[in-house]
């Protein structure tokens, strides 16, 4: 039987499959939905689309009925228009770039310092027990609480915001690496030692790979905190960036720009998380994580 020929079927599943084939392969032979698009379609893609349309419609209706919508809730269209305006002037790419640059530099330095520190402290049982409570203590001081102190020390300079991001990254990473190193099963270390491995060898071949999954998890969590700290830091210290953009737009009553900035912050974080942090984390866990018995 020809693959595209319509056929009566008793089972609803087959009917759906046939309809699918008829709609997407027969009627438009060149449009072939990828597996990904099919999955999206099956997993409530229509509902999501309807939901987004509903939210936008509700937003537009509310903004049409309230007094002074420009100040309280500008319509979706004017938010979109304001993005064109900002893009045209080149402000938006500039601000986005500055925020991202700050986040990347701050968190890279924080991670680069935190990982060796965690491993060094984790090498020895007594030393790790000594540092565990104080790392926990500093981890529970959020970086943003430290911002006023840094502002007294360094004023509203670039160093202040970078310092907050660095601090926000360093302690969770160091803490996670320490926990990861300590929870590496002793049997691997003992096995290597029995085979006559040196201390350096044990660190390289057991402890660092063993700590890899918790390094990845810690990095993702701390960059999540650092992202929020960067935005808050920009608002408070007045450094140019997305956070500063929405804060200053609020001060001059440009609500459309505020909403635009919020949407950008959300989208940027989702992109960063989905395409950079999460793949790194899952790859690391797949490559290095071992099942502990």
């Amino acid at each position, binding site marked *: 039987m020809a693959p595209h020929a319509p056929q009566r079927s008793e089972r609803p599943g087959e009917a759906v499959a046939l309809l699918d084939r008829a709609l997407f392969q027969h009627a438009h032979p060149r449009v072939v939905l990828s597996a990904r698009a099919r999955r999206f379609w099956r*997993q*409530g*893609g*229509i*509902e*999501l689309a309807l*939901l987004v349309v509903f939210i936008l419609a509700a937003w537009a209706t509310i903004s049409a009925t309230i007094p002074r919508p420009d*100040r*309280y809730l500008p319509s979706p269209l004017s938010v979109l228009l304001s993005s064109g305006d900002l893009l045209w002037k080149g402000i938006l790419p500039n601000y986005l770039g500055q925020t991202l640059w700050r986040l990347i530099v701050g968190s890279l330095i924080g991670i680069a310092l935190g990982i060796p520190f965690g491993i060094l402290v984790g090498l020895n049982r*007594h030393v790790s*027990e*000594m*540092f*565990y*409570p*104080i790392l*926990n*203590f*500093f981890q*529970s*001081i*959020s970086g*943003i*609480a*430290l*911002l*006023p*102190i840094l*502002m*007294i*020390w360094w004023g509203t300079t670039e160093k202040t915001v970078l310092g907050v991001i660095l601090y926000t990254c360093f302690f969770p990473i160091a803490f996670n690496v320490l926990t990861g190193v300590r929870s590496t099963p002793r049997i691997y270390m003992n096995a290597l030692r029995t085979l006559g491995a040196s201390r350096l060898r044990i660190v390289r071949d057991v402890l660092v790979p063993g700590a890899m999954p918790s390094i990845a998890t810690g990095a993702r969590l701390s960059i999540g*905190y650092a992202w*929020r700290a960067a*935005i*808050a830091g920009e*608002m*408070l210290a007045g450094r140019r960036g997305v*956070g500063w953009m*929405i*804060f200053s*737009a*609020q001060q001059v*009553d440009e*609500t459309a720009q*505020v*909403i635009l*900035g*919020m*949407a950008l*912050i*959300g*989208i940027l*974080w*989702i992109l960063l*998380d989905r395409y950079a942090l*999460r793949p790194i*984390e*899952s790859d690391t866990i797949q490559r290095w994580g071992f099942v502990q018995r």
Partner: protein
Amino acid sequence: MNPLARLSLGLQKRFGRQRLRRILLGAIPFVALGSLWQMNAVYGWLAPIHIPPPAAVWGAVFNLQDGCPGVIDALRQSSGCLFTNHILSSIGRVGLSLVVGLPLGVAFGVLAGMHRRLAHALEPVGVFANAISGIAWVPLAIIWFGVGWLTTLFILLNTVFWLVFFNTLLGVRGVPRAYEHGVLTLGAKRWKVITHVYIPGALPSIVTGIRMSMGFGWRALIAAEMIGGDRGLGFMLFVSAQEYKTEEVFLGVLVIAIIWMLTDRACLVPLERWTIERWGLVWRPT
């Protein structure tokens, strides 16, 4: 036996040998840091405006509590007790947002999670809402509610609700259908299915949501109070920093850390442990 040895033995018996060793070892960095801090005050390596002496930080408590008549007035938040007022205000908002946001988040999460396709459709919405929750809402909240109590409460509620909602949704969605069908076969009504299948099945994930929402919410609250608040610990930090009263800033930071550690240790960690023991592994979203 000399008294020192007797004391040591008594302590070991009281706490257990390993635990005592861990407590003593863990105290070393704190003591070292504290003595460095005190030495800095004595020898004046760094200016007191940058690193205030410990005594000044301790004194800041009394400065802030200057006009406070007594404990009862402090609890009633009379105007003189600045220090306790700021603390109680922050904690009160956290409590309020938990009381309001938690049931709302769980209720909507269960409702949405019961419908599988809807749950799939709502997942991106939750991801997006969580990505902007917290600090990014502050400017818009200031436009809507003005600077003050309502703005900070809104930020906190926003963070708590979306995290609890999202985690409940994922938890309910992850409950195997076989349980639901089994209970339905036995003649259960819809309400029974919710209370006996969905909520217990999603409980580990709900607890994770609570813990995460407290972690992110507390940070967001401090930041929101700095930018758009008129009271609370974050506000106290910001105002003191603007007046260059570094000792008050240090005091505020210490109080924030201590409150968070106490909440985490006394409520969230035991809650999580209890859930793991009672309902199985706490499931972590990745």
